[in-house]
């Protein structure tokens, strides 16, 4: 285990000052697959995280239009956790255009910060803006602790993403497992999943085909 961890350290790079809030680049295996739906003639990407110049540039270079919903600011700014389900419902209606369908939806680490009811609400709303080929890209922690707030993610290239923790404080991770996520997101199926050494499991979901 210790040997694996040292490999992990070598594969990442601290950006900025040292400390709990320093950002690091980590490899990604799912991202290259996630951009398949948008790499043909451009596409429409829904980013549920905060706006990032790097991500805007990444998708603009591929001729994509990007829609930023920034649920982090709606859910984890001043909203207390007791009212978060209502805040999520409101944000999903207010911040995501109902008339559009997207080719790729970036969930980032949001699933680690929502309870079961909130994941159901999110999945239910997202399936309405998906077409048959839409992919959802997300990740969950496989380590016991995660930052207290969702991280900020910036795409460096198709193989690496820079993570900036949303808080120096830590909290227990929900440690979602694949069957649990599939149960909470009944309209979606797992297209593929990738276990990464830095303690994340990346998921690609696709809308479940009608039986």
């Amino acid at each position: 285990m210790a040997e694996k961890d040292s490999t992990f350290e070598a594969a990442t790079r601290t950006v900025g000052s040292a400390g709990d809030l320093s950002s690091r680049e980590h490899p990604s295996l799912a991202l290259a697959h996630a951009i398949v739906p948008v790499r043909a003639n451009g596409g429409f990407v829904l980013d549920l995280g905060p706006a990032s110049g790097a991500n805007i540039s990444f998708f603009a270079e591929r001729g994509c239009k990007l829609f930023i919903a920034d649920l982090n600011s709606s859910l984890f700014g001043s909203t207390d956790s007791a009212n978060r389900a209502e805040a999520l419902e409101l944000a999903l209606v207010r911040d995501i255009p109902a008339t559009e369908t997207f080719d790729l939806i970036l969930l980032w680490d949001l699933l680690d910060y929502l309870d079961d009811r909130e994941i159901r609400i999110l999945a239910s709303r997202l399936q309405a803006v998906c077409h048959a080929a839409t992919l959802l890209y997300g990740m969950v922690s496989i380590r016991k602790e995660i930052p207290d707030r969702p991280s900020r993610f910036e795409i460096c290239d198709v193989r690496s993403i820079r993570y900036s923790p949303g808080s120096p404080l830590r909290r227990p991770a929900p440690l979602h497992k694949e069957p649990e996520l599939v149960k909470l997101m009944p309209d979606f199926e797992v297209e593929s999943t990738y276990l990464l050494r830095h303690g994340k499991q990346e998921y690609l979901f696709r809308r479940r085909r009608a039986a």
Partner: protein
Amino acid sequence: MWKKNEEASQPGPPVPTSAARLQALEKASVIGPSIRIKGNLTGKEDLVIQGQLQGEVRLQANNVTVGKEGRIRADIYGRTVHIEGEVKGHLFAEQEVIIRASGKVQGNIVSPRVVLEKGSNFKGSIDMEPAAAKAPEASKEAPKEKPKEAPKQAKNSARATVTDPAGAPQPAHPIGSDPPANTKGDAQKSAASVPAPAPGNRP
């Protein structure tokens, strides 16, 4: 390629330098913090808005700045659009949109060049197609076309050159080719996209 603030841009006409911009700001008309306007603004000079405005701002040939005290509920058309305050509305710029760290925007951006400073707050879509910036009204109303064809070779070019985590420049993974199977020792746990062999077809 990147400034310290976060920038996403496509090639376009040169934008004013900060010195030139400061000079332009000095000559700009100012709507002060105590002014409230309901209606449409048009004109042919640069404008700084520190007050409250509801309606529409059309200064396509000029620079529009929403100052820190500005509170806008309007679509803004300008040559450049700089946001330091709050805007609920769409931003259309011929050259660039800059959302400063203090800026908060809820609306869509159509501009060939977009700069989001760290700490800025933005919700909405970003369209950096220059054609769309030149004809914002058409782009707003045009129905969105979904790609129907099978994936072709991607549009990647020299701009797709990136820096790897170790800092050494290397070509990005070719967009049109298959993604890497495995990198840096990370294990692919499962891939549902690879169908399991049917029982009858097992070797």
